[in-house]
């Protein structure tokens, strides 16, 4: 195999996550499954409960809209790279729900550092996510199973 072929193969296997077209550059980091902050669900029950990737994408887009327009936490999102955020947040949820994605974003601590996120902001985000999941018609019990995973990540999101 020629060097070029190997290079091409490597590139298509793991494109640099900070160099997606249309996104602002970010500091280099290693893409690892652990960055997602929790192990994905087993089986496809949760992916199904969320309506597969299409359903998850609608939930994520609605969540991002709710967060950005939120009177309480909207301010925290003003500087975000909307293009990247839509991609990485989708990947994240899709990965955790075992709906067939790889998460290529940062780990939770790096993603939220120096944002000054307080507990009330976290709870507000949870409420927006609940509204987004309600709008998609996702069963309350399935919603809570996802929230259970996110709940363990608080220490990396909320600043003490």
């Amino acid at each position, binding site marked *: 195999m020629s060097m070029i072929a190997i290079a091409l193969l490597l590139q298509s296997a793991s494109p640099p996550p900070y160099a997606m077209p249309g996104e602002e550059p970010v500091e280099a980091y290693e893409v690892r499954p652990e960055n997602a902050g929790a192990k994905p669900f087993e089986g496809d029950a949760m992916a199904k409960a969320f309506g597969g990737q299409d359903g998850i994408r609608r939930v994520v887009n609605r969540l991002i809209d709710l967060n950005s327009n939120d009177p309480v936490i909207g301010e925290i999102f003003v500087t975000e790279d909307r293009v990247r955020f839509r991609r990485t947040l989708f990947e994240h949820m899709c990965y955790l729900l075992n709906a067939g994605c790889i998460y290529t974003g940062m780990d939770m601590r790096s993603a939220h550092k120096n944002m000054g996120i307080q507990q009330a902001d*976290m709870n507000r985000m949870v409420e927006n996510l609940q509204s987004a999941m309600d709008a998609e018609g996702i069963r309350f019990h399935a919603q809570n199973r996802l929230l259970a995973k996110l709940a363990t990540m608080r220490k990396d999101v909320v600043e003490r």
Partner: protein
Amino acid sequence: MSRIKLSLSTCTLALIWALPQAAWADELRGGGKLLLTNGISSLEGASGGSLTPWAVIAGNETKDGIGVSAHATVAEVKSYDFQSAGFSIGLFDRVELSYSHHNFNMNEIGAALGLGADYAFKQHIFGAKLKLAGDLVFGDPMMPAIVIGAQYKNSDNDAVVGAMGAKDTKGIDYYVSASKLFLSHSILASATLRATKANQIGLLGFGGDRNSSYSLQAEGSLAWQLSRRFAIGGEYRTKPNNLGVAREDDWFDLFGTYAFNKHLTAAVGYADMGSIASVGEQRGVLFSLQASY
């Protein structure tokens, strides 16, 4: 009595004033708790279920603010009417101070016992609760929130509870509670251990001819969350049995609680309070409203 009330409220005021001054240079932040995660006010004023405290702090505040709540509860059991009303202050989702007043109306039984129709047992309860560790919702899914608490109870019916055999007209309960919302099952479980001398939670005084010292009682709640706003559950509470003349039974209830919004929560229950003041089968409905900020 009034001296204690006064010094407790001075203490409360001092705490409210001093804590943020000392610890927080930043702005205080009101509100922010998730629906139902401050529970409702239990009969004795501590936030939790209807009958027993949970390891939660009253008010809507998070660790960055101060919250308050007020409650009114009525229980209509076979022979008696029971009203409880009070308020609480939550400091930084860590400390809870509460006051609750009980009015236990004997209706006709009062006359039958020679106390007069509509005789009422009354008491004041001052509570304090401190969260030691853990979290109800977040963090390690197997690590519950843990609190310790105390309830100072003072009966208004000194002569009558004395005549019934109570050793004291006031007393302090001490308790420890652990509670967790197991999100992956939508189930909240809570357990409390209480050291108490109280007869019928203090309405009939403290200690008695059968036993005059502290005994350890177990209390538990199990609730199933059906939506963000609505949960159903049951509670059980063991009680001492200190008075020879008035047998005392364990209490249990089944309840539904609904959050209309962040500021108004209602609970409706069916409670079985067993024998009270020598008349058995005290079962009936329990209704409670709580406002919180």
